[in-house]
């Protein structure tokens, strides 16, 4: 039996996309999650709802608005094109932007609950020992919230790998640029190349499964915080 040839391009692209997306999301989601965990502002519910929107919206709705937003005449795409000369829609950068929105709740929510369970006291204690807020965050809060970070990274990564609708709408299907695994699978199925589709699908399935097993194992092993 012939081993079906697999184009590794979409796999690498997917991994790259997921990596960059999660990296940027951690930077962006940390302050949002921190704010949500500690604010008493009445806008909190609004922000929580906005963050959770990608969970309930059909990816096509999100993709449609992103396409308009990122397009040459969009609020984001227009100025970016004017500044850099490159179009956001149907580009890798555009995909990263879309993925960040799409995976936002998967990163914000674990961090939010981690910060909530860490509570205010470690921050106050570190400050009373002479640490600035930022210093205290990196030396005390983030190590205490490491379970939350691990969950956020893994869920964000896996979820970005698996997205389809948004990517298709915003990125199109450009080999080497925006063609990621999930779309490659769709393409293979369309042209009846089930063998290739199987390999990619099973790969994604196993990857997701092992990643989740790993998360749950590590989460169990990390000591429960005692104060």
């Amino acid at each position, binding site marked *: 039996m012939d081993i079906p040839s697999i184009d590794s391009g979409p796999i690498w692209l997917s991994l790259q996309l997921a990596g960059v997306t999660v990296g940027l999301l951690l930077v962006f989601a940390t302050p949002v999650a921190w704010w949500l965990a500690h604010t008493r502002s009445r806008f909190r519910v609004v922000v929580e709802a906005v963050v959770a929107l990608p969970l309930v919206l059909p990816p096509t709705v999100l993709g449609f608005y992103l396409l308009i937003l990122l397009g040459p005449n969009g609020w984001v795409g227009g100025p970016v094109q004017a500044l850099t000369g490159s179009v956001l829609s149907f580009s890798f950068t555009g995909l990263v932007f879309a993925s960040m929105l799409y995976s936002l709740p998967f990163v914000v929510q674990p961090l939010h609950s981690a910060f909530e369970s860490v509570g205010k006291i*470690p921050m106050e204690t570190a*400050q009373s*020992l*002479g*640490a600035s807020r930022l210093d205290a965050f990196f030396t005390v809060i983030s190590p205490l919230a490491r379970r939350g970070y691990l969950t956020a990274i893994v869920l964000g990564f896996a979820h970005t790998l698996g997205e389809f609708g948004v990517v298709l709408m915003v990125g199109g299907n450009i080999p080497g640029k925006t063609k990621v695994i999930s779309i490659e699978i769709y393409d293979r199925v369309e042209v009846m190349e089930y063998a290739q589709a199987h390999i990619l699908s099973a790969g994604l399935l196993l990857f997701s499964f092992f990643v989740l097993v790993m998360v749950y194992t590590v989460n169990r092993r990390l*000591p429960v915080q*005692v*104060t």
Partner: protein
Amino acid sequence: MTHLLEAKFKITYPEFSLDVDLNLPAKGVTVVFGPSGSGKSTLLRCLSGLERAPSGFLKLDDQVWQDEGIFIPIHQRKIGSVFQESRLFPHLNIQGNLLYGYQRTPLVERNLHLDEVVQVLGLGSLLKRYPEKLSGGERQRVAIGRALLTSPNLLLMDEPLASLDMQRKAEIIPFIKKIKDEFETPIIYVTHSMNEVLQLVETMVILNSGKVVNWGPVEEVFSDVQLRDAVGDGQLGAVLETTVSEHDDKFGLTRLDFMGQVLSVPKQNIPMGKKLRVHIHSKDVSLATAAPVGATSVLNILKAKVGKIGAIDPNGYSVDIELDAGRPILATITRKSLSNLNLQIGQPIFAHIKAIKMVHEMDT
């Protein structure tokens, strides 16, 4: 060395308000005493900068930490804090915890170092261990050491022993005394335990319902007829400073000299000439207008004069009397007795002391 602490805070919450204006010499241990909900912890949070009272003033010696338009953030105040729970960082070992604040203290300001703090607090064998492996008492010692290692100008302790059992408490108090003696850091210590007060205090501040009721040296402050609300029934009474004058092996007693009179207490293993602090509950003092004619089982009878007659208690049957025996002593008697004895201010009186509850050696 005495530091001068000026603190003025006004802060209002829906169900509670704090309104204090303190100007006190911070030396040794100053205890903030009062019933729960009296504002002790809020006062400490205002001092440390965890709470910002909208109108406040805070100054230690010549450093202004809060004034109109000035609010030095908590991490820039040279204040160490110890809380009821140890609040150690679970991800750092004991050495890491101890050094957390030390490493964040500028080199020139470090006047306490790891070795001496570890030695004084007996932490040597714990350094490589993690907080979760330590007993409650050990954790609290580490927390105290960690705060000291920031070389603070003021150490705030908010009921540091409240979560420990009697045995652990007894284990830690000597360490706090040692800190007082060996390092010159003034300590502000919040508690509602009379036991801790007697063992540690020089100066005390009594808070009730967010207001300072009285403050000053413990012997003077405590024998105030106004204190019933703030101190609580079971603890109301006089704190007296006495000197060990004689040991009576035959009857197992130690005699104490108090303003030229004698008090006998169960035998203490303390050399003569040493100072002892005793606490006499007001309920253990009864009054007689004449010296006993027949024999009495009461050993301790002090000659005094009637000082002040205080307010009647909420139940309406007893009243607190302040006696002058060189130092004030409090007696709680019934209103009926007050009427029977027909007490007049300045009248000589015999105070029968049925029990002396607590005896503590003072470090001098």
